[in-house]
């Protein structure tokens, strides 16, 4: 059963409303999980569990929200910023995010901004299509 992007968005919206205690009108495509919706680290795991249940998919560790493995690699991050190599790796690891703005100021502290509602929808869509 193929789901349209709107249907996926609606489901993702429900997941985020429950997981983060936000209102559904706050969950827009551009909203970032940490900055706009106030997600903390444990919420990311909660969201992964809920998405797996809602869509019947398996989300491997660090696939949807990779952070540690990238940030702890000195080849990818130097002086608090992503290197060219790091940015290339980001494109490979998180193709569901849009790094076009991020790459102008690739500060590690801004990495969280990449994880938007739209990125989750895109990730789930890819995952469902691959299944």
């Amino acid at each position: 059963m193929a789901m349209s992007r709107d249907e996926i968005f609606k489901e993702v919206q429900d997941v985020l409303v429950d997981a983060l205690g936000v209102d559904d009108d706050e969950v827009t495509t551009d909203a970032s999980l940490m900055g706009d919706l106030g997600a903390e680290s444990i919420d990311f795991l909660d969201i992964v569990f809920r998405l797996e249940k809602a869509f019947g998919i398996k989300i491997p560790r660090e696939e949807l929200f990779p952070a540690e493995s990238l940030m702890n690699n000195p080849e990818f991050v130097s002086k608090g910023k992503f290197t060219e190599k790091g940015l290339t790796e980001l494109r490979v690891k998180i193709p569901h995010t849009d790094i076009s703005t991020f790459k102008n100021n690739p500060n590690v502290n801004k990495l969280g901004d990449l994880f938007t509602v739209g990125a989750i929808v895109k990730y789930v869509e890819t995952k469902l299509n691959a299944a």
Partner: protein
Amino acid sequence: MRWIWIDKFTEFHSGKSAVAVKNVTLAEEHLHDHFPGFPVMPETLMIEAMAQTAGILVGEAKNFTEKVILAKIKKAVFFDYVKPGDTIKLKAQIESITPEAASTTGRITREEKLIAEIDLMFSHIDQNLAGKKFPEENFVFTGMFESLLRDVLISDAGSSKEASEQNG
């Protein structure tokens, strides 16, 4: 301090579900203040009791090698008061468990009546919070909890035959 809010386990299915009971008594001093003339078990302590039931279930699933910390109360809804003389039953189920975390669902009942629904999330802290160091010893699962499991037969997730026979 004995911060234990369950009396014993009556069922334990490794990696899946567990049932604990708690007998509430007026000998618990806080009930005289909560509230004077109207003693009821604080709802916060019902959450703690569920966190202990579910936390031990999650800990046992990894042979108590992980430090299991309550990370998030996903849901806590209460439907009735719990009073001295009541025996409450806490049933916890593991919904998901991964190397770094676990999520559980739980129901508290008194006889057949639903008292509360409490869903929780636990973190295996050594697997998270990169860069932070925690003490070597497992400060979460100390001997304090051993007696709780003494009377219950821990059955394997795969072969829970004995326990299901025991519990009919």
